[in-house]
């Protein structure tokens, strides 16, 4: 951890900062912030960097365990349908479909320990709903 003063938004401010696992953590104005180091040096920000954010890829929003899968391969799902349940830190989280779609592939099984961002279900978005 390092502590220093730098000019931010035209004012000298005290900052504490540390790099942990390719991420920069810093405290400024009593608040802690963090940012990926990898895309820090790119000139313009790419908001959709995470491949997981598209509606057809259901990825793990956190590390944890898959405890229930509600759908089968080939099944069609409505927007809002529960797809699977994950458990982390003793709480259950239900992942739902964002759009009308068909289940193309199940990439996880009940009992699997999965990592953050891991693909769990690949959906095929129905034609009429596709952008």
């Amino acid at each position, binding site marked *: *951890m*390092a*502590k*220093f003063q*730098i*000019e*931010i938004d035209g004012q000298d401010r005290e*900052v*504490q*900062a*540390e*790099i*942990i*696992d390719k991420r*920069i*953590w*810093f*405290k*400024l104005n*009593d*608040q*802690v*912030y*963090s*940012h990926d*180091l990898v895309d*820090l*040096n790119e000139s313009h*920000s790419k*908001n959709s960097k995470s491949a997981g954010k598209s509606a057809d890829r259901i990825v793990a*929003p*956190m*590390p*944890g*365990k898959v*405890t*229930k899968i509600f759908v089968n391969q080939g099944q069609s799902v409505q927007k809002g349908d*529960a797809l699977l*349940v994950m*458990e*982390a*830190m*003793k*709480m*259950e989280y*239900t992942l739902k479909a964002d759009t009308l779609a068909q289940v193309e592939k199940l990439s996880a099984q009940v009992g699997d320990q999965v990592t*953050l961002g891991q693909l769990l279900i690949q959906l095929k978005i129905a034609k009429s709903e596709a952008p």
Partner: protein
Amino acid sequence: MKQIKRVAIANRGEVAVRIIRACEELGIETVLLHSDPDVNSRAYRLATKKMRIGPAPTAQSYLNIQANIDAALAAGADAVHPGFGFLSENADFAERCEKNGLVFIGPSANAIRTLGDKVSFKRMAQKAGLPLIPGYEGVDQSLGTLIEEVEKIGLPVIVKAAAGGGGRGMKLIRQISEAKDLIESAQREALSAFGSSQVFLEKYLERAKHIEFQIFGDCTGHVVHLFDRECSVQRRHQKIIEEATSPSLSEALRRQMGEVACTIATLGKYKNAGTVEFLLQDGQYYLLEVNTRLQVEHPVTEEVMGVDLVKMQILTAQNQFIFNSKEIRVARGHSIECRVYAENPYQGGMPSTGLLGQVTWPEGPRRRYEYGFEEGDVITSYYDPMIAKVIVWDETRPRAIEKMIRTLKDSTVFGVNTNIPYLIQILDHEEFRSGRMTTRFIETYFAEGLKNKTSDDQIKKWAQSVNKELRRLKTSNSATGAPGAETSHPSPWGSFWRGV
């Protein structure tokens, strides 16, 4: 009863540290019964001895009765402290400890069975004419019956794990169409967290406050209460902020509820620390449940009462603690506890895991920190997200709120996201400050977590400036060969003094 010489701790995290401290002050050795990942924890570093009980999953470690008992015996312990959660309210565990010659630091197995089992507790309260919430706690656990009972009680209805606590295996049914899914989900969570899928149903009170009384039965069986706490600030039925005493009780109400709490505990022949929970709505109070263990929020009671509940527990277990009948007990000032969770408040409380960097809890008058992890430890997804508790005391409630906000702003955790910004906004909310908040407070005002997040672009810009300075410091240090003037990593003094 013989003097306890070595206590095995069947728990982890901050409560394990809390128990170690109490034991140390009483001259008792400790044995930490731990899972594989918890070698990276403060309790592991502080305990006199450590014994591995199994791998990370709780079913194979912290919930495995045989493994805990075997390890306690192998380490030469003569008593077991179960902390809270895990096996703390498991009557079989208490019984097996006693059978193996280990003093169970808590109530008797019988008291856990009669009061801790919510079904038998309700029968006992009913018989004694104590006020209960309408509900269903039958043995018929078929889906059909449960849904029928939901309709009979009238929506909204809450489903709870019969063996539960801490919000796990609890679901709220608002529409009958959701009943099936929610009941099944509650049963699964109950099975995974407590080893039993049994649930019961209860009418959900919409504007209730959560009030609880700390009770304590001394070694003669004399039960007194150590006043009340309010824990209305809950999310998904998990407490976030607790305080003592409640800002909502008149003296008359406090006296009545305190008497009910002592009555039910006395009926259950209760010894040691426990908590009687109530819901309070429109001046009416209803008995909710008895938690037959030390509570996460016990420090706020300790702060206003000037007691050490864990030491009282240990002394009671060795038959040495008796209440002085002439002593007048009064609660003084106001105490607040905030639970620091490893989660992202800007993503609806999504769990956050990872390697901890700097963790600082700056001291100050009547600020108290209970924490189980330090720099270099890893927060995993296997266990509860609570990484620390911050407790303050001050003369009045408004002052305690101000002190808590300042304390949280001074605290720093790098490496995982925490709910600290969320806690600060809750404390600063007008309804919390007024003391009028109900158990629906979070749902009403903070359902989606925090929204007014600093934009990603802004954070990125700051991060770039900060990173540039970090690199400049690094190169200038390596160029001159001097150790980093203000970087703590190379200095042994930084870590030596941390947490003092």
